[in-house]
């Protein structure tokens, strides 16, 4: 199944849930509404023509420019993107799903944006979501055990956010 027909299929199936996409990009992608991510993913996995049985990777990308001067020139509004790379072992095709989230929930600094966990669809999402939560600061609703995974449990902040500041001190160890 070619990328274009795949995108069309999804757009026809889910309609306005799929809010965008680019079939001509290096890796063709579709953008999905955060609320219906779980539905789309379940469909992608279970549909006989798609069968995306393997979740390769989840990436959180923080679009934010801490430098105000540069921020004025940047082409996008600050936001956070979740990128899901999927592939099908059975049918040998791939797909990228993007979910756009606000940097902070309700624009309140410190409250993490929320999205449904897909760990019930692919169990590999369990650790990947923990990593994204840990490093990029995105809260996954319905995750069975959302703890930090790479940083210590009492670490403050989410290092892969562009406005992250290394703490001055961590348990007596100099940070900066």
């Amino acid at each position: 199944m070619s990328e274009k027909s795949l995108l069309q299929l999804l757009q026809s199936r889910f309609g306005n849930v799929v809010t965008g996409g680019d079939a001509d990009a290096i890796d063709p992608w579709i953008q999905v509404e955060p609320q219906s991510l779980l539905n789309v993913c379940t469909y992608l996995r279970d549909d006989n023509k798609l069968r995306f049985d393997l979740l390769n990777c989840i990436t959180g990308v923080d679009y934010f420019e801490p430098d105000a001067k540069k921020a004025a020139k940047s082409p996008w509004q600050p936001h956070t993107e979740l990128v899901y790379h999927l592939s099908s072992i059975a049918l040998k095709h791939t797909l990228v799903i993007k979910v756009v989230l606000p940097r902070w929930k309700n624009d309140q600094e410190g409250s993490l944006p929320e999205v449904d966990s897909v760990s019930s669809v692919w169990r590999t999402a369990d650790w990947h979501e923990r990593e994204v939560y840990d490093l990029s600061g995105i809260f996954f609703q319905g995750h069975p055990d959302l703890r930090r995974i790479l940083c210590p449990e009492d670490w403050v902040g989410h290092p892969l956010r562009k406005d992250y500041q290394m703490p001055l001190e961590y348990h007596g160890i100099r940070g900066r």
Partner: protein
Amino acid sequence: MATGFDSRVVEYDVRTDEMLVNMGPQHPSTHGVLRLVLRTDGEIVSEVTPHIGYLHRCAEKIGENLTPRQWIPYTDRMDYLAGMNMNLGWSLAVEKLMGLQLPDKARHLRVIIAELGRIASHLVGMGAYGLDLGTFSPFLYAFREREKILDLFEEVCGARLTYSYITPGGATADLPPGWIGRCEAFLNELVPIISDYHNLLTSNAIFIKRTCGIGVLSAEMAIDYGCSGPVLRGSGVDYDLRRDGEERYTEMYDGYSFEVIAERDGHYPKDHQYPKVPQDAVLGDCWHRFYVRMLEVMQAIDLLRQGFDRYSAATGDWGTPIKLTQKLPKGEAYLETEAPRGQMGFYLVSDGSSIPWRVRARSSSFCNLSVTHEICRGVPIADVPAIVGSLDIVMGEIDR
């Protein structure tokens, strides 16, 4: 008494207490700084909780501040047992973003280097697995052979562990004159030694007892957890990115003939000259994972031999590395390659400058390790190293 239980059914058991045991982060057989919290009842482990992150070096954060070529040494330090393959993965991902096409010679050079790296990595995997099962000698035998590969690598790039050899655009240097001959001689030496390893481990009665039917990972579960590489193929899934991956990667292997090492109808490809699959072995157990690795060494030798001729015959350049401050096109690219430990993916987002906006490394061992708690449930303590060892993890890659 809870409802649904029949009060007449009573099981007799010795009353014992549960104990929480920390295996690691300093433990001889956790392959680095992995910490497993075991909930044990006597010798039986009822629950394993892996804790990782002790080797976290913020590689992705560093990558947001370096140009792609500058970040190559950091990829070396991810899977430090297969640095060449890490370099290759990252280079291909950058090339994918830039749309670079490589000359034929560079392609064959990369195949040779990648497969040699695979042999080196699997040799360590094999030796360390022997160590996990309590036999020391295979480890040193494996290192003896690996040293020779490292010698070859040293000739190529001057380093023995962190090579930074393959770069976006090709490699930092061509293979030195006469290197192919030396490599070929080494392979001729290695082939009979491999059958020694089979005698020492694969077909050893105690080894079979310790690995067959232990840590069985079903194909469904392996895919569900995103396992890849020998762990996935050991479960009988016929999937190898060198054949099934993206075109940008598979075209590297164009014209090479190889069969994916996965069991079909109780047989592995070309397995007549190796030990038979033991009766007790269950598809997806530790033995199969180990066996797949051993066969992949032979497969790599075969690929190398094909590569030598092609490389010698190939025309063109061995590649020109991109400039250190090469501007990247705006966009994003994700590419997975078949590293020795599984599918190693690199993802980079570029905003048009020479430094990527976001760099991501999808680690194969990370996913392979995440299955631990499933397959270590209810096994004796001694099997925990056996199972974790059979996943052949490298903490540098997991923690990044």
